[in-house]
């Protein structure tokens, strides 16, 4: 049988032939496989294009226009002025600064607390199941509900937290109305909300570790603390990195706390970037400038994701 007539395993599964020699015409079976594949992929691809990539393109285009949402037809091409405005005026720098500080605070607190919780959940201690449910509850609760609940908790005069502080002999704290305390308060709330998710990720990492490695370390003479420090933590570096990236991206995209609890104040101390974008587009009616801010945020998140992919590339396996 001539080679051109044989149906290889590769062609039978619809894979693309390597570009060597003349390209063979697709067989009927290949064509049918492609049709099937396209049929299954189409709904998702269409949704992705229409609701993800198309808005991104529109946003990128809008970033070089000056226009208001009230009258989009009057849009005026301004080139890179929206971007130069970001440098010229302080609002973008302040907002990005606040957002990075917020992300830093969330990451620095979530990582150790989530890791400690994961260690607890991975142990044979009682009430693990209950704790697992309790720490996952905030994760599955709506951000709006959480923000409103925390607004009550942090209320300067009648809040539960101030009540507890009063019992401890500490006077009422302003929390959300203080430039020093508002951002830490939002960080604390986000920690409370996200720590369960971080713990579940760490728990998955812990449960994926080969038990022989910790056993080998124990036999090698390591105490439990030394096993944790020399074996468990280094081996969880990829999980840790993943949690860092996820928490950073979550924090960069945070909107509800600033919108519902502080409206970006006091004195822009909680003016998170997504809230600032919202404010620029819908309150200040500077949709072009908001688009430019969104483009920069997109690039920052993209850069973090790419750094994640580079760092997550395996240096060693177990």
């Amino acid at each position: 049988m001539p080679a051109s007539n044989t149906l290889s395993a590769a062609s039978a599964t619809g894979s693309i032939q390597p570009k060597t020699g003349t390209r063979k015409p697709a067989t009927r079976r290949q064509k049918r496989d492609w049709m099937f594949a396209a049929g299954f992929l189409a709904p998702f691809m269409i949704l992705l294009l229409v609701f993800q990539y198309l808005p991104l393109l529109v946003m990128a285009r809008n970033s070089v226009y000056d226009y208001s949402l009230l009258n989009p037809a009057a849009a005026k091409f301004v080139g890179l002025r929206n971007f130069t405005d970001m440098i010229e005026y302080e609002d973008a720098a302040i907002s990005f600064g606040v957002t990075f500080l917020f992300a830093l605070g969330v990451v620095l607190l979530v990582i150790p607390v989530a890791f400690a919780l994961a260690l607890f959940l991975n142990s044979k201690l009682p009430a693990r199941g209950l704790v697992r449910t309790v720490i996952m509850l905030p994760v599955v609760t709506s951000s709006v509900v959480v923000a409103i609940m925390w607004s009550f908790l942090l209320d300067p005069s009648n809040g539960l937290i101030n009540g507890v502080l009063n019992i401890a002999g500490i006077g009422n704290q302003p929390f959300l109305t203080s430039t020093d305390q508002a951002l830490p308060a939002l960080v604390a709330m986000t920690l409370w909300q996200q720590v369960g998710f971080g713990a579940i990720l760490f728990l998955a990492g812990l449960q994926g570790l080969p038990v022989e490695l910790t056993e080998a370390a124990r036999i090698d003479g390591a105490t439990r603390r030394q096993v944790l420090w020399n074996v468990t933590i280094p081996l969880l570096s990829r999980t840790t990195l993943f949690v860092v990236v996820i928490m950073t991206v979550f924090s960069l995209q945070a909107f509800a706390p600033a919108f519902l609890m502080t409206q970006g104040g006091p004195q822009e101390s909680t003016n998170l970037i997504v809230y600032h974008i919202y404010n620029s587009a819908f309150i200040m009616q500077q949709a072009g400038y908001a688009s430019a801010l969104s483009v920069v945020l997109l690039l920052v998140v993209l850069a973090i994701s790419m750094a994640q992919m580079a760092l997550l590339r395996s240096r060693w396996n177990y």
Partner: protein
Amino acid sequence: MADVSLKNVGKTYESASTNTIEDLNLDIHSGEFVVLVGPSGCGKSTTLRMIAGLEELSDGQIWIGGRRVDEREPRERDIAMVFQNYALYPHMTVAQNMSFGLRLAGMDKAEIRRRVEDAAQVLDISALLERRPKQLSGGQRQRVAMGRAMVRDPAVFLFDEPLSNLDAKLRGQMRAEIRRLHKRLSATTIYVTHDQIEAMTLADRVVVLNKGRIEQQGTPQELYERPATRFVAGFIGSPTMNFLPATVMRTDAGVSLQIGDVAIPVPTARAEALRRHVGKGIEIGIRPEHFLADGAAAFITTVDMAELLGPTTLVHFTLAGVACSAMLPPELAVREGGEQALRVALDRISLFDPDTGRAL
């Protein structure tokens, strides 16, 4: 070097309906190479892990070097262990893997380096010291795991099926190497395997475990030639022993064993033990190499299949309705479907009580 003693050791898992290990008593002498062997689930790895301190005992005591250790942490037992999948720390180099225990012990850096280099030289891995485990072959990883155990100069070496992930050729090489290392270090070694060839070739003493109990212990030779039970007889030896149902018959000359329509006279030395079984059924165990084709025929059989293995030919045939195998010299012209005259080396057969499985 240290003695190891297991006293009435028992292990019960909550999920198991029966005891995994029951009343296990075992004394291992200083410098001895003991192999725990048995089928999957017999409790050999659990026993080793209890000695290592990785499993808690449900009952009994473990003593190492005259100290009771069963309530001590693994690090307090002066042991080193080589795991089945090597358990090398993937984020450390070979040198770091080997020196990990020494660094934890706060040993002087120069002494650590000397020990690592010495062990690496003995194991022929000096060129690999800066590599990570991922960059090593299975055999090299195995050597590193052994090196990690060696540098600590422990009182007892524990091996948990260390060769089962290697291919047959490498397994043979590493077997010889482990034996050589033991001779060199003379350390007390407890080695777990399900491979009876490893057990036979490595051990000073083999302990056969079955369902959490010691079935028999002794030198490899003793176990092979004088199995105490049908289980041991069937487990030790490859190809496995042939088991045939037989009836003990009294004859004018003494006692004979009737296997189907073949009558095999029992040597006088064994006849006495069989007199009280006259008229009863027993089980006769014949190793494949104890079927002889030297012209003195006891029976003639039809060859079902002949496998030429090189130094020997494995001949399959049916005797008294039981599939049997015999190892015959390769120069013998055995033909599949042809007839073959065989006799049994009567002084080498094993006899078992079919009810208890114990040797008669």
